[in-house]
């Protein structure tokens, strides 16, 4: 369950968009301390990165060396994942 009410809960997972294939994605993930968990489903050039040194859940998007991934010129887009409260109907 989400512990922080309506506020976003940030995780230690990122979605990134990197062209250049799996190798390039692996290179960039290693550069900033992430682990590349592979392509996101059928979305080409989109990868799932995980950072084990970032706390699993946080009320804020914690800043650190890992944040520089957003500024890397090889990274088209990056987004830290937030927990989305979902209910079964």
């Amino acid at each position, binding site marked *: 369950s989400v512990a922080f009410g309506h506020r976003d809960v940030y995780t230690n997972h990122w979605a990134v968009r990197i062209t250049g294939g799996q190798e390039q994605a692996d290179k960039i993930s290693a550069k900033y301390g992430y682990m590349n968990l592979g392509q996101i*489903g059928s979305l080409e050039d989109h990868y799932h990165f995980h950072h084990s040194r970032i706390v*699993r859940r946080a009320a804020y998007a914690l800043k650190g060396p890992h944040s520089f991934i957003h500024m890397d010129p090889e990274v088209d887009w990056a987004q830290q994942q937030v927990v989305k409260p979902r209910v079964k109907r």
Partner: protein
Amino acid sequence: HAQIDPSFIHFNDPKWFNMWYIHCNDKSSHCRSEMNIQAAWQRGYTGKNVVVTILDDGIERNHPDLAQNYDHLASYDVNGNDHDPTPRYDSRNENIHGTRCAGEVAAVANNSHCMVGIAYNAHIGGIRMLDGDVTDIVEAKSLGIRPDYIDIYSASWGPKDDGKTVDGPGPLTKQAFERGIKKGRKGLGSIFVWASGNGGRQGDHCSCDGYTSSIYTISISSTTENGNRPWYLEACSSILATTYSSGDFNERKIVTTDIRQRCTDGHTGTSVSAPIVAGIIALALEANFLLTWRDVQHLLVRTSRPVHLKADDWRTNAAGHRVSHLYGFGLVDAEAMVLEAEKWRTVPSQHTCSQMPERRIRYIHAGQSVNSSITTSGCSEEPEQHVDHLEHVVVKVLVVHPRRGDLEINLISPSGMKSQLLAKRLFDSSNEGFRNWEFMTVHFWGEKAEGTWTLEIIDSPSKLRNPEVLGNLKEWTLILHGTSQNPYQPYSGQHSSSRMLEIPASQEFQEEQQLEAEEEQDEYNGSCHSECGDQGCDGPDAEHCLNCVHFSLGSLKSDRSCVSHCPLGHYEDMVSRRCRRCYKGCERCVGQSAGDCVSCRRGLYLNRLNSSCTDTCPPGYFADENQRQCLKCHDTCMRCLRYADRCTACRERYSLAGMTCVPQCTDGTFFHLEEMTCSPCHSSCRTCTGPGKEECIQCAEDYLQQEWGCVQTCTPGFYSGESAGVPHKMCHRCEENCLSCSGPGTTCTKCKEGYSLVSRTCIVNASCNNADEVFCEMVKSNRLCEKKLYRQFCCRTCLMNG
């Protein structure tokens, strides 16, 4: 109200008699069961070869009523990142939902267990994705699993239905939807079925749920046995259709499979309805595998109807469709769906026309309303964007407002039809407004796009507000989706009862031969028509001839005329020099009998085997629209549709791959589409879809599955182990930062560079500056190092320091 059904199917599943929503055979009480599922079964459709997956908290794949239909290729565990979607069992039975949904779709029939699914011969899988943190990545991954294999994704969850949430798919999930409808099912488009919101008691409105209000999802609502509104039901303009579900305590319930191999009637809500529709769509896909994602929505619009569903707001739109904010186009009709599907013509391609009014400030005063209008041509000047016949209409708004729940938003089409895009929500006190939120309505389906559209925003304050803080409609965009042509061909069935194409002969010939000349009584001395013969005429026209040069058409009763050539539907009888009618349905013929046809009228096809016109070609033949003939399917096809090589069933020793019949290749080989032969798999594969080592389906003997390939030994970072649901051993990932381990959990024997092995786990080599004796004693006494979260901190330093 149904009488005793003489064609009642009997299954030995113990709860079959409780399945009132499929059949009515209760002699003691009135019963209405109008989804016509049994009738669809009686036409031979049970979901065979259709693949459905349930996105939820898992599926009990070894449930006796699911095991036979369970398909591991339609399944995945996104939460656990493995191939086994078995739900996590706990004392609170949290993870019952997916199994309950799955049973409704494809519980096995006549196996003495529990109940019967709507598509009881379909393949059923489960994607476990709700039992953990749900993120945009989790949702996008789940919606993109095997899109060429899975036909239908059913989801019975969504954002909170608390009456104050506005939430929807993130950027990745939106892309997953778009990719699914464009590329899924080999270009026909994945089918996404979604349960509409359950927040009726909280006054929620399902337009604030971006999943159900997406044009790519089929949003489904619920009604009770007696057609009443269930307590949980939300209203909104994006609902497409409705099914029965559980309702009040004095109304009957839905039965389905439950975890721990049980059966239950506790499943309720709109969660019941989405899987039912997924099952019905499976029946329709079996009737016509070439239905696109939009075809399916059209079928639902055309075949769903109000019947006994009670609502105050049933309206008929300008296209003649009856629609309600509670039920969409009404109760689904499975029989009508399959019958329409059989003869369905793919709708024309989707066009999208967007228009925005000129920007200006439009303040919304408390207690008042704001109207803004756009006049559109439906982008008629742009052929690729032109929308004439509407499907979905989307309004994207940017509204700033101090109390969002006080707003009601309506859209009025050029025909005057009004659709409520948003109702007031009592519990929504947010001041965030709507930031480019997209409201969607299906209420204008089939209407014309051209004309003036009006957006109406009504502010009805429910609590005291500062009157100086005004709302503001900053901008809005009208997005029209639809087609430039009429999507329905004249011979498509308009209703399930008109499924047989009949051409009344008298009507047909009346339309072609309107010969209503009055007989001239007076003697005529003028010149005759050129077609008149040597006996002269009574008047100037061809109808006045006393005999003909070439052929005579008609009779005394229908007014005879002279013609040079006989019209369509007739042949030239050279002996009597008369035009005689062809057999019914023939356009051109050489004689009067059914076997004398040369070509057929529109909507019928010439069967060259017996030279007759038919609306259904014999097995092994397909109806060719261009030649209007029954043409032979490809040799390997037993049945095909629209083209000789678009197979829907194969001959012996061939199997269906998409729409192609390919030889059944033996193990170790795959069918190479370009070379049209069986080619060898990679040596590491036992079965495969291609030559590469990443294309294995099952691994060869002595090989293990690692990620998406097969290896002889697991690479560093992985360990070998069994995996439930997979017939061969697999390489599982060791704990993070570990290069070599013997199993799951803390079993590491060698770490990556930069990490040290401490208590069989890998800890970063960093030292802690403040790890003094007192601190380390606290760490030790609280056994913090046994908790993964704390291992990276000071455990190494403390342990190294003794």
